[in-house]
């Protein structure tokens, strides 16, 4: 077990290096000169531009830039943004909001996804099963920004139940609608996954054997059908935490939340390599750690899986 954990942690190193290198290369390859863009409409002062370039290492070859970034990142020094802020401060402001948003979306999709999935799976063919199926299909097929705008219009503009946008320092109510929008697609997938798992587990031989023991229908459902159906659902939920963090970009744009997604978006627009790569590195780390936790959780849920 310890050996397995160590191996998995060591595996994270090439993953992080690979992804950061790739992102760095992509930002580097973006058309346009970020330094020139900083001058806006004013004429470019070459001396100032050269000074900025050397300050941000932009005059050095790509690979040297990358290695310098990596070296500084190891000491948690992510450098400064073009506007002179410490990158670490920007991240420190953006992440708490996004983590809050992602966790709310996670709780929303987990609770409602599993509940509707169980209702649908246990009562296949009933009218509410059909309704749940149709709604989940709608949520999957309609793009998130459409769902977002529709909800914004209905709940915010028309009925005034929830705030239309979140703004700075958003509270629970401000984030409620964005979280539902963010979690909606995953919730639909969880409904469908839970439903099909329950349907296939119901026909397992060991369920029949359990009934033959004389167990009551409720006991069979809880101990044999639901327990086994939850294994893939939990796996999906675990990997989804990372996806929610990174996928918050669209919801954050729609509801004007100053989180990771928005910051990342602006960083890309301005060609700020260090900011973009720093954020992505943290996202990658979160993703990889979530995956590891899921794999460990999987072994707890399914005794057939043992790590050595």
């Amino acid at each position: 077990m310890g050996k397995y954990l160590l191996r998995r942690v060591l595996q994270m190193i090439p993953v992080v290096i690979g992804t950061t290198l790739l992102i760095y290369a992509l930002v580097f390859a973006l058309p346009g000169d970020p330094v020139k863009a900083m001058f806006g409409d004013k004429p470019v002062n070459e001396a100032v531009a050269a000074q900025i370039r050397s300050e941000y290492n932009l005059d050095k070859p790509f690979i040297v830039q990358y290695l310098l970034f990596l070296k500084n990142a190891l000491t948690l020094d992510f450098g400064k943004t073009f506007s002179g802020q410490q990158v670490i401060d920007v991240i420190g402001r953006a992440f708490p909001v996004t983590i809050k948003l992602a966790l709310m979306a996670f709780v929303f999709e987990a609770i409602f996804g599993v509940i509707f999935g169980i209702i649908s799976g246990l009562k296949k063919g009933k009218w509410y099963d059909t309704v749940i199926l149709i709604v989940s299909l709608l949520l999957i097929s309609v793009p998130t920004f459409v769902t977002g705008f529709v909800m914004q219009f209905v709940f915010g503009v028309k009925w005034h139940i929830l705030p239309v946008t979140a703004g700075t320092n958003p509270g629970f109510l401000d984030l409620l609608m964005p979280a539902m929008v963010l979690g909606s697609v995953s919730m639909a997938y969880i409904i469908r996954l839970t439903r099909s798992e329950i349907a296939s587990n119901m026909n397992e031989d060991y369920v029949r054997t359990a009934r033959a023991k004389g167990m009551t229908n409720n006991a069979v459902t809880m101990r044999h059908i639901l327990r086994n159906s939850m294994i893939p659902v939990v796996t999906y939920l675990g990997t989804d935490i990372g996806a929610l963090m990174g996928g918050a970009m669209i919801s954050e744009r729609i509801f004007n939340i100053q989180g990771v997604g928005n910051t990342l978006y602006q960083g890309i627009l301005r060609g700020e390599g260090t900011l973009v790569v720093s954020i992505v590195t943290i996202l990658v780390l979160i993703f990889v750690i979530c995956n590891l936790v899921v794999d460990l959780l999987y072994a707890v849920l399914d005794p057939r899986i043992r790590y050595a």
Partner: protein
Amino acid sequence: MTEHDMTEHNQPAAAAQQSAEALETVLAPDKPLLEVKDLKVDFTTDTGGSVHAVRDASFNVYPGQWVAIVGESGSGKSTSAMAVLGLLPGTGHVVGGSITLEGKDISDLSRKEYEHIRGREMGLVPQDPMSNLNPVWRIGKQVEEALKANGMDVKHEKRSNLSKAFADAEVDLQKKDDELFISSKELPALLAESRQALDEAGVRNIDKKIDYFTGEWIPGSETRWRVAQDLIQAGVGQDKAWDIAKRNVTGSSIDDRISGLLAEAGLPDAATRARQYPHEFSGGMRQRALIAIGLASRPDLLIADEPTSALDVTVQKKILDHLKQLTDSLGTAVLFITHDLGLAAERAQHIVVMYKGRVVESGPSLEVLQHPQHPYTKRLVNAAPSLASQRIISATERGEDATRLMEHHLVDESGLDRSEHIITVDHLTREFKLPRTKDLFKAVDDVSFSVKRGTTLAIVGESGSGKSTVANMVLHLLDPTSGTVSYEGQDIAKFNAKELMNFRRHVQPVFQNPYGSLDPMYSIYRSIEEPLRIHRIGNDSSRRKRVAELLDLVEMPQSVMGRYPNELSGGQRQRIAIARAMALDPDVIICDEAVSALDVLVQDQVLHLLNDLQAERGLSYLFITHDLAVVRQIADEVVVMQHGKLVEHATTDEVFEHPQRQYTKDLLAAIPGGNLELGLDTE
């Protein structure tokens, strides 16, 4: 109680008989325990129509009796059993007739009422031990569920407490429902006091007696009165023995009871095993756990639905022997579902033969076996492989030529100028690396044999013996670690691409699973035509003609050409697989468990087909199977493998009449129906 107890120690057996007699007077043996009358079961199809799975089936099971329902798959035998349990799958429902259990009609009980009688009045031992235990729960937990569901745990603990309170005043508890079991906590004290008592009584060989007690007194299984009986038997005075038993056997915990049940079902080291998960068990061990579950709440009727058909023959014999002893000692009646008439006749007192949803014949086992009335039963008697090999043995004993009966003598003598051995396997070894360790596992260990042209060589062994690995190496699908496989005297490992293509053309496989070896997206025509196309033989019209010929050869109508595998039965698919193997006119066919998945009648037909093809075309077969009964019907020579090694190699007659190794003898003894007398009118 263990097997040892029942065979070598007669005191408890006598006591058990006493209680069995008492039981009989209570239950009135002339009244059936289970009475199924004119049962009709329908399945509703997607289009709203009905499929009649069971039609007017009637049969009775009397207390303590073994009744077998025999028939091929689709005959309605399992459906009838599930109707009794109220566990019909999918759209199945009882549409007529009655099911009476202990005098009350149970065919239209509510779900709650059924939950009440399942487990405590009737138990189930299902067919496939691999899929019938929930992989996420420990074995012990799954046994516990069976006890809890029927209130046995509560009753159990209550009794334990009650008996503790009344320990002094209590009288003789020698009853059927005596549930005062030894607990693992009390066992050391019990043994110590017993040793002291034996010592005081001046008994000799105390150590031997104590050893015997240690083996017998399994916590959670052995009861107080048995302990007292054992002590009295060993020479302790009556009063002293009861005194020891009363003070030291005051009831066990639920965990003790669970391991006691598992031990009764024949699981060694049950207390440890109960904490393991199903995937840590072999198939045989899982089936023992399922038997423990089925019998946990002491039902009067146990429904055993093909309980051993997924297991190796040697394991099958052990488990059925044990189940028989256990149900006999508990007085449990068994409804035994099987497709093998030999097995049914050997185990059950009464046989019910089902065919196409109807009961076509029923009667005492030997009566049915020796004087079958219905044509279907006659066919079953003729087809049962266990009985067929028995027939050949008895024919040889009468001095007849066994080979004539086996009807697959080689006629093609023209091949003698070529090498006599078409396939030669020389010191073949294959190692596999075990995951995450440096250990190598020898799946095949120094195996040598050769297949003579136009004959059949069978490789026999249990699962895991390495026989399929040999087949894969002979087919050049797997490279050997060392050793060689030669075809026509040439090492197949040294073949270049063209020679390999030629080799593939002449050596064809037929695999075990006819559901998996045909591509479901290919029509039958395309499946059979594919090898011809790959080897660029003929044009479209000549290929069509050839496919038609091949279908004739395997006795399938040409109309199946446009159909798809899922529309055919298992036997029909296996015929298609044989037709495909025959398409290129091969010299050698390698059959890897080619008939194991098939029903006996279909199995018999396919074996006949293989025999005929060999006689007509001088084919050589390498026949891999775990079933010695099938070997008797088809093989000329037998190679027996165990743990990757070749343990015996001789002609079929030699192996059957003078087996050299104990392992081979065990395999032979495990063929069901081996000890049955067959009437001559069956032939």
